[in-house]
């Protein structure tokens, strides 16, 4: 097994008063070197919480990591001191947040904001840092002469480019992108995705792409983890997941997107809603909404069934489902 990034048995809870929100429940995942992994799931599935716990920037309180390890390049991030962790954030692992309008400082020029990151991690003069900041802006397709401008002078797409420039300025080996294009228009989204694809090739960094858009995952990622109620229900390469989804939830997710290339009278929908995270059902978390639910699903948690080296599913019907689909 590779040791680039491995999450083992991660459990995270948010506590407010007597309510315990079970955001992430014994999650296991790996990301290989140079690999792009897509985290897919609905609101509240625990995608962002998982990402924040990798960087150890969960708001504590209310969030609390109850168990688990995050092993990055052989060391457990949860065992590091805050000082050691600070050296990793930004330099080794960088994050791009969803909303570029709020993740930039409005009273600092974009050049200064890139310099800040560079000077924090590298010994260099202000002048060198400014030079590098200009280079980074050019890399993401912004004229270096605009380094002295403030975020409000940029459009949404340009701001997201600046955020990407900051994230990449120290050449991190892992980039976590949390819904990087959700706040943008489709044509601008296409520009940013194209840019991220190029940069991924150029920098050879690994990436975790958090999104609810299965189209974006198909374009950028190598592997996909389908998240539901704080667990990964299915994991595999994009080809496996898109061609042969095995978990009933994964299929439902695909069925609910209107397909531009096909005419459909009605969309297939799954009834009900994702479970209340303060009260996750026993057994398989998806069982109350599952069309194939059996008695044992209500009490027993399904273990991962490995269909091949990369593709696994947490469903008792994993093998059968596949057979049925092929018939």
């Amino acid at each position, binding site marked *: 097994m590779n040791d680039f990034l491995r999450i083992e048995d991660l459990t995270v809870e948010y506590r407010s008063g007597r309510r315990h929100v079970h955001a992430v429940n014994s999650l296991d995942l790996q990301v290989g070197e140079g690999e792009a992994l897509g985290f897919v799931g*609905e*609101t509240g599935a625990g995608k962002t919480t998982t990402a924040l716990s990798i960087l150890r920037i969960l708001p504590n309180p209310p969030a609390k990591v109850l168990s688990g390890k995050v092993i990055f390049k052989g060391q457990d991030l949860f065992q590091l001191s805050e000082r050691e962790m600070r050296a990793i954030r930004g330099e080794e692992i960088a994050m791009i947040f969803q909303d570029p309008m709020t993740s930039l400082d409005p009273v600092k020029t974009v050049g200064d904001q890139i310099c800040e990151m560079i000077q924090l991690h590298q010994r260099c003069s202000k002048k060198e840092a400014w030079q590098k900041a200009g280079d980074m802006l050019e890399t993401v397709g912004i004229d270096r002469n605009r380094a002295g401008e403030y975020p409000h002078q940029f*459009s949404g*797409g*340009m701001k997201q480019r600046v955020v990407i420039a900051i994230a990449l300025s120290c050449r991190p080996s892992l980039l976590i992108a949390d819904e990087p294009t959700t706040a943008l*228009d*489709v*044509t*601008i*989204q*296409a*520009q940013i*995705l*194209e840019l991220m694809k190029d940069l991924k090739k150029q920098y050879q960094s690994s990436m975790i792409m958090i999104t*609810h*858009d*299965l*189209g*974006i*995952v*198909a*374009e950028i990622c190598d592997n996909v983890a389908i998240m539901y109620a704080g667990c990964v229900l299915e994991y595999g390469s*994009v*080809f496996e997941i*898109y061609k042969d989804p095995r978990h009933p939830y994964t299929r*439902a*997710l*695909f*069925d*609910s*997107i*209107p*397909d*531009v*290339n096909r*005419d*459909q009278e*009605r*969309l*297939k*929908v*799954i009834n009900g*809603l994702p479970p209340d995270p303060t009260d996750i059902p026993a057994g398989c978390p998806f069982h109350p909404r599952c069309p194939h639910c059996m008695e044992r699903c209500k009490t027993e948690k399904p273990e991962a069934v490995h269909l091949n080296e990369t593709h696994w599913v947490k469903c008792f019907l994993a093998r059968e489902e596949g057979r049925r689909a092929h018939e």
Partner: protein
Amino acid sequence: MSEPLLEVRHLKKYFPTKSGMLHAVDDVSFSIEEGKTLGLVGESGCGKSTTGRVILRLHEATDGEVLYRGKNILELSPREMREMRRKMQIVFQDPYSSLNPRMSVKSLIEESLLQRSRGMSSAERERRVLAIMDLVGLERRLAHSYPHELDGGRRQRIGIARALILEPEFVVLDEPVSALDVCVQAQILNLLMDLQKELKLTYLFISHNLSVVKHISDQIAVMYLGKLAELADHETIFRDPKHPYTKALLSAIPIPDPTAHPDRIILEGDVASPINPAPGCRFRTRCRWAMPECAESCPELMPNGNSIVACHLYNGGQK
């Protein structure tokens, strides 16, 4: 062909700003037949929501006509307009901010009845509220809940119930599913389509999401910076897009298939400013086929095959 229920002619809406006139909607014309859906797509700031609001006179138009069953509603007195609004309703995008947090589900839905049907007995109002809750799929037990206790999908159902309780003929749906997760989005889309069939509603469906618009619309109008770029039925526009902007917009949709390698048209730069726009085609600054004449005059909407396109590439017949 049946009579159009709604016809918009040369509609204009300008907003005065410090730096000049903002041309939010600039000479837009289209019509919607009874019982059909027109999808209005475009990126943020293109004027699609403003168009919807001007039609309902939530903003007063700068110029143009909105004919509802042949009658120009922009000329109605406020009193007549109030009567008219019974027939024309709107569902807003954000179910989180468009509902008063201090009102229960029942009173939120009842509110429109109180305004419009004075003298209705409270028993009758209650009956109507419960009937509409059944219709939009809200459980009756939720009647005394408050919006913050409900999820986005249910809140959007309240928005739909509020619009439908007055039994309108025409509904403007302003990004009704954009704030929802895909699974919930699918539920609401199905609901909207069922309601349309059952109540013979006519929709103006405003959205930036092309796949959603294609799914629900009969006709699709593509808007760019206050002007219509192209108008066609939903199949034609996807099979044979004509306007360069429509082509770019369609190619930008990420396709959920890892084996597909779309031939993507990446547009350079950003949308130009709608304040004091330069003469000529609004899209020419980002268009790869821009010609000298695009800067001189603004292309008119002209029929071309099954579509109506506003582009000089098609007006001269060459391409």
